[in-house]
Structures are given as C-alpha cells and as structure tokens.
C-alpha cells in the first residue's frame, strides 16, 4: 500500500477540485479542464508503456481515442445500451485493431513505425469524416453522462468516475511495469538481442505494449465523450496524437506520475494559465507554441522528462548544503 500513496495523493488532489469549486474558490470551467487533464493523463500513461517502457512510437493515439469515443457515443445514444456494456465494447474493438498494429509493427523498423502509424491515423480520420451515420460527420456526435443502470451520473459524479479510473489505472500500470512483464518490455526496448536470448518473445511483448496503449487510449476516448458530451471528427487528428506524445515526453518517461505532470502541462496550463494572461493570452496558437518549445527544451536538456526536475532540484539543494559545510571558518 505504501508504494501506492502517491497515486492516491494525486487522485485526491483532483477530487478536491469540485469541492473547491462549490466553495467558490475555482471556476466551473476549471473543473472541465481538470477533467480533460485526467483522461488525457490516462491516455498518456498508456502511451508511456508503449513509448517509455517499450521504446515504440505511435502517432495513431488520437485515432484510437476517437474510435472509443464514437463507438461509445453510438452505443449509448443510438442503441441505448448501458454505459458499462458500451464501455466493454468501446474498448474491445480498438484493442483488437491495436493488436493487429502490434503484429504489423514486428516487420517495421523504428522510423518506419512512426510513418506507418501516421498512415493508420489518417485512415481513422478519413473513416470518422465519411461514416457519418456513425460519427455524425462534420457536425459531430452527441453523448450523455454515463448511465450506470442503477444510477445516472451528472457532471460532478462523472468527474469523480474519471478520477477513480485514473487512480485505478495508475495502480494497475504500476503493478505491470514493476513486474516480470515490465522488465520484459524494458529489455525489449534496451536490447532485442538480450531479450531473445533470455526467452522474451518479441511478438508477445509488442502485442502487450500496443494492447495497453490502445486500451488506455480507448478508455480515455470513452471518458472524453461522456464528460464533454460531444465529439467532432477533425478533433482526432495527428496534432492531438502529437500533444499526447508531448504529455509523455515532457512529463517523464518510464514513470507513472510523469504523464500526469505532462498532461497538466500540455492540457492544463494553456487553458488555466496562459489564456488568462493579459495580451498574450488572446493569441491564437499560444498553446501549440508553448508545447512545441517545451518538447524541444525537454528533449535537449531533460531527456527523461520534467519529473526529474524535482530530483535535480533536490540534488542541487543537497550539493549546496555540502558546499556550505565544506567551507571552513577562518
């Protein structure tokens, strides 16, 4: 239980927000932003397993999110299925597609993989725009707050649901990456030769990596559409995939908390901070510039993400303390 404390702490921090809002301390729109930070964090945690732990890149994340969102919206709105049943189907189908991609990825080397997933993302985008009986086409698709059979959620409870999902997935992912499976993924990333020599099947673990990333992306998409209650096709584009990639890179690869930080930076700060700034807050595209520069700066100077910034500050602090001690009194 001790190791999970930080996850519960993060979850709690998010859960406190709506209570602060009821007390009038933060605005109602901030809750929406925090909600989006949470489900993008979930998608980021999944992508981290693929990119950070397994060393594989995918630009199709937004497409899988969108697929989860549309299937769930369709099943709950058009077919009237209850939320939980719709959830299972809405993540199951993208999962299968993700596994197929994992299979294909075995044939493809590093930089080719990014390009191939780019192709996949484009196919998704095209499908979303064209299949308008399903996705509502350019005018978008509506959905409602989750209907859990015995309980119809409202915005407050949906927010809590997202927080609970986040905590749960953090714990589960932690368990996976600190186990034999996690070690196998890291070995696959570090040295395919060593992995094979140690009996790690590259096929099996690529499937695992892509499976987790796709599953979490689909979950994120479902949470998106039932919280925001709307989805339109041009939103699920490569730029979104890049933003989620930024979440992982900026926050901290190979940590569970990293994507939370990353999501807050990429999806939270632009809305909560940048837009409120005088003058420059009104500039179109400020968020992109902010994220773009951060990605570059982080990769060049903090390749493992901002989460290690805390570590470095601690070390710096300790070093200064030592220096103080080292200077003798004359």
């Amino acid at each position: 239980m001790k190791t999970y404390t930080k996850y519960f702490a993060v979850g709690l921090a998010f859960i406190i927000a709506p209570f602060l809002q009821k007390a009038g301390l933060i605005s109602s729109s901030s809750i929406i932003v925090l909600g989006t930070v949470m489900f993008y964090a979930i998608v980021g945690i999944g992508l981290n397993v693929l990119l950070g732990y397994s060393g594989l890149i995918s630009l199709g994340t937004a497409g899988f999110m969108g697929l989860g969102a549309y299937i769930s919206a369709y099943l709950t709105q058009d077919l009237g299925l209850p939320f939980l049943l719709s959830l299972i189907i809405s993540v199951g189908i993208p999962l299968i597609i993700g596994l197929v991609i994992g299979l294909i990825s075995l044939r493809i080397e590093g930089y080719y993989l990014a390009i191939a997933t780019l192709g996949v993302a484009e196919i998704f985008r095209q499908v979303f725009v064209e299949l308008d009986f399903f996705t509502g086409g350019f005018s978008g698709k509506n959905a409602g707050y989750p209907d859990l059979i015995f309980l119809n959620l409202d915005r407050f409870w949906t927010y809590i649901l997202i927080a609970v999902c986040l905590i749960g997935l953090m714990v589960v992912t932690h368990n996976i990456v600190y186990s034999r499976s996690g070690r196998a993924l890291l070995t696959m990333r570090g040295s395919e030769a060593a992995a094979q020599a140690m009996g790690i099947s590259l096929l099996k673990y690529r499937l695992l990596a892509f499976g987790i990333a796709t599953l979490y992306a689909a979950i994120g998409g479902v949470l998106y559409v039932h919280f925001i209650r709307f989805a339109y096709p041009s939103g699920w584009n490569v730029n979104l995939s890049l933003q989620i990639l930024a979440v992982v890179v900026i926050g901290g690869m190979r940590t569970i908390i990293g994507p939370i930080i990353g999501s807050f930076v990429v999806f939270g700060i632009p809305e909560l901070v940048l837009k409120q700034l005088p003058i420059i807050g009104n500039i179109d595209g400020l968020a992109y510039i902010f994220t773009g520069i951060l990605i570059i700066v982080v990769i060049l100077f903090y390749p493992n993400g901002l989460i290690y910034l805390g570590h470095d500050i601690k070390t710096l602090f300790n070093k200064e303390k030592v220096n103080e001690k080292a200077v003798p009194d004359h």
Partner: protein
Amino acid sequence: MKKQCLTIKDLTIAFGGIKAVDHLSFHIDEGEIYGLIGPNGAGKTTVFNCITQFYKPDSGAVMFTDKDNNIFNLVQMKTHQIISHGLVRTFQNVELIHELSILDNLLVGAHIDFKTGVLAHAFRTKKSKQEERLLLERGEKILDFLGLLDKKDELIGGQPYGILKKVELGRTLMSHPKLIILDEPAAGLNDTETVELAKLLKSIRDEYKCTILLVEHDMRLVMDICDRICAISFGKKIGEGTPIEIQSNKDVQEAYLGKVDEDETDINIR
C-alpha cells in the same frame, strides 16, 4: 563414459558468397569447459551466433542434450526458444538494461521460469507475488556468490565494466542452465580481472554444475581453464584437443603467427 552436451555437425554458413563457417564439426562433453579459438576473422562470432540461433546456418546441425536427456536440433528453433532448453549466452557488448537495477537485470534471466502472466501481475495475485519473491531470493543468492549482493539495487548505468561482466554472468545462471556460452568474456579485462574470471568460471562449473563454452581471444584464459579447445581459421577447423595438444599444433601456430621457420617450433602461446 562422457555424455555429449552439444554436438556441432557440418555447420556451414555463407555471406554473400564467402563461406564464413565451412563444414565445422566438434562436440562438447558434459561438465567440460570448452574453448573456441581462432585469429581475427576466423568466424568465431559467426559460429557463436549459429549455435544460439541469431543466425540460421545454411546447412548442418546443432544437437543439444537437455536436462532430461532429450536431444534437440537447435537449428529448428526460434532464437527466443533456445533458453528454455537450457542454453544461455552472454554478449560481447554486455547487453544489460541500463534502466534496471543489478538485481532486476538478473531477474530478466529468470524470465522463462515465471509462470504468471500480465493479468496476474496487474492485480498482484498471491501467486505472482510468491513467484517474484522466490526468484528474488534466487537472484540474491547468485549475487552473493558473485560478491555483488551489496550492490543489488544499484542501477546498471554507470557501473564499471568488470562489474557489468559479472552481472551478465549472473544473469545466465538464473535459469540454472545446462550450458552457458560466453562471448569473449575476457574482452576489456586487465590481467588481474582475467585471473579472477578464470577462478570464477571454474567455480561456476563446479557450483552450478553447468558446461561452459568459451569463445575467446585471450590465450592465457583459454589455456588455463579449458579442458579441450577447438581452433578454427577461415571458418574451418584446424585443430581440436587439450590445451597442450593445441599449443603444439603446427596449423594453429601458423594461423596465429604466420608461416614459421623450421627452427622456431617451440612457440609457447602464453
């Protein structure tokens, strides 16, 4: 009657028309420390990779006898299936994982001994916790044997070379293999470290009851600890036997030193 552990029959592989390994045959008995030597470019690494199925030979067989006395032709297997039969290798470039601790790197060596899958790990079932504990103990025992127990939680990144080599050796022992194949284990080690390595390899053979195949350049190590040696040159066998026999083998001397004058036959390869 000595039991055969690994038998190489007529191994042949060519790259772009050039025969890197040419109808090579030799066998290793159980409990031996066996050396494969040859000058640069002789094809030692290629033979190594053909045995461990990182390359598929064009023809020939690699017959391995496992713990239950079943005989398999390794050529018919996929690379990642080799270890489950009891054959583990090391790498010239010491392929350890920088982001994992020393102990965790050892646990990777026991990957095939875990029976639990992702779902069990995800929900930390009793069985998966038990397995992890057991294999952690096994890893710690090996680290203790290697004298590295105090470093078990340190990350691999930043460790000195000598320690990396030891950790990789430890990793091979985790699955209690029948045969370990070492790719130039003395590469990059100084004299003292090499002597230590020799001692270590002999005690591994005695403690863990495994057979050892050594592909090596360092003659001192090879002559010191190997029971038998196979010497190759240009992919072909030029000699096989005990260290003394190999040392006095004219063909081997020629391969290493070039054609020698008749008067200078006593070259001690020390």
